[in-house]
């Protein structure tokens, strides 16, 4: 309904500035962890949406302005696409604290 319209607006704004939208995820609608007041309104419930897009970094500031002016958007956030690499995680290597902390006189 209204959320769909708001989403459409944001994606159109992205496309206008030349960003390629990869993926759109709906993280559900739930009550916010704390009351957020935006545009003279208090919000306690909200829908979370995640938009993956590729674009030039210069559009971020313009987009923040645009989304800040949008009444339906409570909190716009931009995050770098997470590159996960956890296969290199070796165990806890025991550190020799004595050598680390005490400077030995030469």
């Amino acid at each position, binding site marked *: 309904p209204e959320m769909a319209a708001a989403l459409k607006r944001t994606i159109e704004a992205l496309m206008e500035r030349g960003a390629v939208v990869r993926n759109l995820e709906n*993280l559900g609608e739930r009550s*916010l*962890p*704390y009351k*957020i007041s935006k545009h003279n309104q208090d919000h306690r419930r*909200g829908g*979370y949406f995640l938009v993956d897009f590729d674009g030039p970094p210069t559009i971020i500031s313009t987009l923040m302005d645009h989304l800040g002016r949008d009444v339906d958007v*409570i*909190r716009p*956030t931009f*995050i770098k696409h*997470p590159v*996960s690499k*956890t296969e290199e*995680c*070796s*165990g*806890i*290597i*025991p550190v020799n604290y004595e050598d680390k902390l005490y400077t030995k006189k030469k």
Partner: protein
Amino acid sequence: MVAALVVSSRGWGKLRQILAAGKGAGASCAVLWRRGCSSQQEHVSHNEDLPIQMENPYKDPPKRCVLCGINVDYKNVQLLSQFVSPYTGRIYGRHITGLCGKKQKEISKAIKRAHVIGFMPVVYKDPTFLNDPKICDIRHPE
């Protein structure tokens, strides 16, 4: 008693004789041995009886922390809430969680991100996650 004393005196004398003979022989032996050593030193270094230098084969594999294979994301609030105090919502330190350096940093960054975005409550722990299994080593004062 008297017989024993006689035996001991005889024994000492014999011992002294043996020692003297041994010293003389030993000296000659030592000289011979030294000569032998000097010629044999090259062989000793290539002896196969010496221990081979290798890494300790009985070493334990390095200890892994709780999150050692798991990818940390700012979206799974449940995992992040496990490292947060239920009363104040503060992040537990490294000495309490027992995590690697890397993972502790990742978790703290993810928690702060979730705070800003509005995913995770800041000043308390989400009540739906209060009955999660305990990972951290907290000791509340009684």
